[in-house]
């Protein structure tokens, strides 16, 4: 079974600085997707960024980028120029792309990010 581990329960960053959130996963599959979701206090689950395992290029969405290391099974999220609105719980998630899979997401336990003004 696949597992996702986020080893940092809480992180803090100064406004305008850069922060990196860690995520590792375990799988025997070669075809899968990885995601970062943001959950602000409003409780919404907001997709931040996605990575397809067969793509070597790291995904980027504005101030958000990932460092995808497939051999190491690592998928970290870098937030540049941190803003107060980035304060939230961040979840790393895995989704199998194997035919016949359930297609559900497997989540890590989350990292709570605080942004200091």
């Amino acid at each position, binding site marked *: 079974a696949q597992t996702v581990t986020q080893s940092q329960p809480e992180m803090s960053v100064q406004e305008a600085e850069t922060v990196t959130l860690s995520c590792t996963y375990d799988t025997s599959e070669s075809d899968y997707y990885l995601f970062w979701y943001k959950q602000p206090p409003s409780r919404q689950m907001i*997709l931040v960024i996605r990575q397809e395992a067969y793509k070597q290029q790291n995904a980027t969405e504005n101030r958000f980028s990932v460092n995808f290391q497939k051999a190491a099974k690592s998928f970290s999220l870098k937030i540049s120029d941190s803003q107060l609105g980035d304060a939230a719980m961040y*979840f790393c998630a895995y*989704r199998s792309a194997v035919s016949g899979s359930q297609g559900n997401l497997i989540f890590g336990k989350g990292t709570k990010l605080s942004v200091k003004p």
Partner: protein
Amino acid sequence: DAGITQSPRHKVTETGTPVTLRCHQTENHRYMYWYRQDPGHGLRLIHYSYGVKDTDKGEVSDGYSVSRSKTEDFLLTLESATSSQTSVYFCAISDLRRQPQHFGDGTRLSIL
């Protein structure tokens, strides 16, 4: 934003009572999922559906049942609620397994 509505948004009920949560989508997506979110556990899959009348169990399905009689509605039922089912429940949808899932706003359920 994806058209997903969960109802109710909040509910407080007593142990032993039946509870039904509703997820309604306007996207005509094939796949629908129910997750629960608990502190220290992230989100965990309860049940999912891959079409009308087609459902299957997830990781934490004990004590829950689901039904999907129409593409747009996915119901989650707690036949006899227990305090361990106090949680925040999220519905998610996607049109293809390879596409990102979009989430509803969640239902906070408290069982006293």
